[in-house]
């Protein structure tokens, strides 16, 4: 295979999943998946274990054959194209550096298969190593590197061939928290630098929210909702998405004269619901306030737990109505376990659904 762009970095290409289905015997891992990714876009596939996100990525890579549907890269149907001819870069969860090759040989691997001349190969590999901050590690072997360093090498190896699309299969899962955050930001910086279309599989909503242009929340082999991080967080369209993105508590109330009573307050609805319907509202911890039992407003309850999160605290309150609710508040307020408090809703208007 010859290198398609030997001199210039190409911009991103589009990726389409069209009604992609993947079955393992009686089990359907992908259930008519439709997804359109724009050139240069960074899309995260987010969802719990078994939702089909990794299968979708591996299908796009060609590591899994699809049962039906089409996969298009830059408008070209690659559904039946072998994995080694799809011109993609992939980073795996388990690093997967070749142990018998040193760092620069690992990075050069894809260039060798493309028969890039030795001098250019070394120069490009070294340049990519500099880009991931490992310019001085060229002669080391995988076992001489930390997990974060190994994953940087894997990223350099995947990018050095200037692939059409970069696929990231939970690349940060095996790293400790600090390295994970650093590498996450580096991946995003490099992706923006190169303008490469990127598909990022993760089960960590914080990762997805931090780096993706758009997030596709997957459930049972298809996409429940796709949107920007803000859209998903602020306007989840399904209970599954609301539950998966951020923390929230489901409250119910009867609609009366276009309003509902929540936590001791009468609240307006963004969209009208039928009179007498049982409205369901998801309330996020930051939309609630913890108030004094004696002098405050809201529904009374008792503190169950309270966690210190730096500048904030999250306190779980067991309301007298029997519901448990999580409230986010200033770390300066330090409620004690079993203390009587009140929980108040900070919003004047909420979006409610009726099942």
């Amino acid at each position: 295979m010859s290198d398609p762009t030997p001199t210039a970095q190409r911009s991103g290409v589009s990726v389409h999943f069209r009604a992609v289905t993947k079955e393992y015997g009686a089990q359907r891992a992908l259930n008519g998946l439709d997804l359109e990714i724009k050139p240069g876009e960074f899309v995260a596939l987010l969802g719990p274990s078994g939702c089909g996100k990794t299968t979708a990525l591996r299908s796009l890579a060609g590591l899994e054959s699809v049962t039906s549907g089409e996969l298009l890269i830059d408008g070209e149907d690659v559904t039946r194209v072998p994995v080694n001819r799809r011109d993609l870069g992939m980073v795996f969860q388990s690093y997967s550096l070749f142990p018998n090759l040193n760092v620069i040989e690992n990075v050069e691997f894809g260039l060798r298969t493309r028969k890039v001349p030795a001098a250019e190969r070394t120069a490009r590999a070294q340049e990519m190593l500099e880009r991931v901050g490992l310019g001085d590690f060229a002669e080391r072997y995988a076992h001489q590197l930390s997990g974060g360093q190994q994953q940087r090498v894997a990223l350099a190896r995947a990018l050095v061939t200037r692939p059409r699309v970069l696929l990231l299969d939970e690349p940060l899962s095996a790293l400790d928290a600090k390295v994970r955050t650093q590498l996450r930001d580096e991946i995003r910086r490099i992706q923006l630098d190169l303008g490469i279309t990127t598909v990022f599989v993760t089960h960590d909503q914080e990762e997805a929210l931090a780096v993706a242009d758009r997030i596709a929340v997957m459930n049972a082999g298809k996409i429940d909702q796709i949107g920007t991080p803000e859209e998903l967080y602020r306007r989840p369209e399904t209970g599954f998405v609301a539950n998966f993105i951020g923390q929230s508590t489901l409250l119910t109330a009867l609609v009366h004269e276009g309003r509902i009573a929540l936590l001791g307050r009468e609240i307006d609805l963004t969209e009208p619901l039928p009179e007498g319907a049982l409205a369901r509202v998801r309330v996020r911890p930051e939309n609630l306030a913890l108030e004094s039992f004696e002098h405050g407003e809201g529904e009374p309850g008792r503190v169950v737990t309270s966690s210190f999160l730096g500048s904030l605290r999250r306190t779980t309150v067991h309301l007298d109505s029997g519901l448990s609710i999580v409230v986010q508040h200033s770390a300066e307020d330090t409620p004690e376990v079993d203390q009587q408090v009140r929980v108040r809703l900070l919003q004047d208007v909420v979006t409610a659904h009726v099942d």
Partner: protein
Amino acid sequence: MTQTGSAPVRRLSRTSGGAGGWGSAQRLIPGLGLVPFALYVLIFLLIPTVLALTTGFFNRSGAFTWDNIAALVDPTVLKTFGNSLWISLLTAALGALVGAIVCYALLSFSPTSRLRASVEAVSSVLAQFGGVMLAFAFIATIGVQGLLTVLLKDVFGVALYPGEIWLYQMPGLILPYLYFQIPLMVLTFMPALSGLKPAWTEANATLGGSSWTFWRRVGIPVLAPAFAGGFLLLFANSFSAYATAAALISQGSQIVPLQIRTALISETVLGRENLAGALALGMIVIMIVLMLAYSALQARTARWQK
């Protein structure tokens, strides 16, 4: 203040000294379990080896001599070493190759699959199934009056022995030796092959490599030390095998272990018992050369192995 400051130092000094001595003793206690094994190795391996080696340098009356060592270059002895080398190299190479192929075939099955578990269990039995029992099994099956020999002749008119009866000569050792060499390779090589990570083949493919690229640049280099180690084990196994050959080969001492027997007990070469020591020395030298070659390979791969 002074007391407070100095007290921990005294405590630390006393504690560390006491704990260190007792700690060392405690660490040695589990090691006592090795004593019976160490004694066994000393009495039945190390001492006989030293005796075997040193006897080659002495005559019957105990005087130092080079005669036995000089006998190693005797054409008959050289031919015997040649026979031992080729049968060992051939069966080790065939055993290693076929065993590796069997392992590769087994790799497509889950480690918990019944087939894989059965093959591994059978291999662990067959790898130990050498000696007289094995020779008898071959004689009963493909000997002159063996079951298969007679069947082939009566039913298909095929003569297994149109000329010489090769089973009782050097070539006849190949099949019986492979019978235990292949399972031994399966046992030793399977763990290494299982250690190849699927993610490596996937990374190779996403980087544009073919299956051949993977094996040439990653798979074979990663497996080379384990394959070489298996080959060396098979060579040593074959090189030192005695009972199977002794039961099958009735005429002459065509391999070194049989020559050692002859030197020890034959009436026709009486007075050459110490030649056995020299022959053993020759065997050890050959094994050392092979182990040095293996060490050189290990040294090459050590830089990327943990």
